[in-house]
């Protein structure tokens, strides 16, 4: 089975800290995605990547950046964490584009920014 692993289930950070959320997939998938999930708002796409060193902004990229130096790893970076970035963060991957393929999700990271 495909495995998408997020490095932390829970994180607590201080306002202004630089935060790294790591995601690794083990099935050589081309595409990787970062979503955040908030009550009443559903899942919103932050950034996605179709190839190594390639990234594209999603619907809410402000305050975030990403890094994809290796195919299996996609990192989400909060340059200066703020309380409104408290959320559940979900990483996902897919073999090819979503026009033909489903997404495989990690278990999520619940981030609290105090």
């Amino acid at each position, binding site marked *: 089975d495909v495995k*998408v692993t997020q490095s932390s289930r829970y994180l607590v950070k201080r306002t202004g800290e630089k935060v790294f959320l790591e995601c690794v997939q083990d099935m050589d998938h081309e595409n990787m995605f970062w979503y955040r999930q908030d009550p009443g*708002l559903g*899942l919103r796409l932050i950034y996605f990547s179709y190839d190594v060193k390639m990234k594209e902004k999603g619907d809410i990229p402000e305050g975030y950046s990403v890094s994809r130096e290796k195919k299996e790893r996609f990192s989400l970076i909060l340059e200066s964490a703020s309380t409104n970035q408290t959320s559940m963060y979900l990483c996902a991957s897919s073999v090819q584009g979503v026009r033909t393929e489903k*997404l495989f*999700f990690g278990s999520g990271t619940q981030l609290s920014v105090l």
Partner: protein
Amino acid sequence: SQQGEEDPQALSIQEGENATMNCSYKTSINNLQWYRQNSGRGLVHLILIRSNEREKHSGRLRVTLDTSKKSSSLLITASRAADTASYFCATVHLQGAQKLVFGQGTRLTINP
């Protein structure tokens, strides 16, 4: 916004009954997908239906798609307590980037 909308937001039924959830969207799609999420966990893919398909089955799941009404439904037959979860529809639109756009989900509770 391209975001889909699920209806109802919450549904509570007795074990053994059928559960129906609906999803509506606004712009033409390439495909529509349903996902399930147990509390505090990641999403798990259930079924994908393409724009040229009208109905798909997978075990106790039945999904229909009506592109003229821009809507889909997910039916879970003979529900079990373990089906308690949130269910999300997600659409891939014909225009724009290849990305899944999720609705806000339906919270399904199956009472034993």
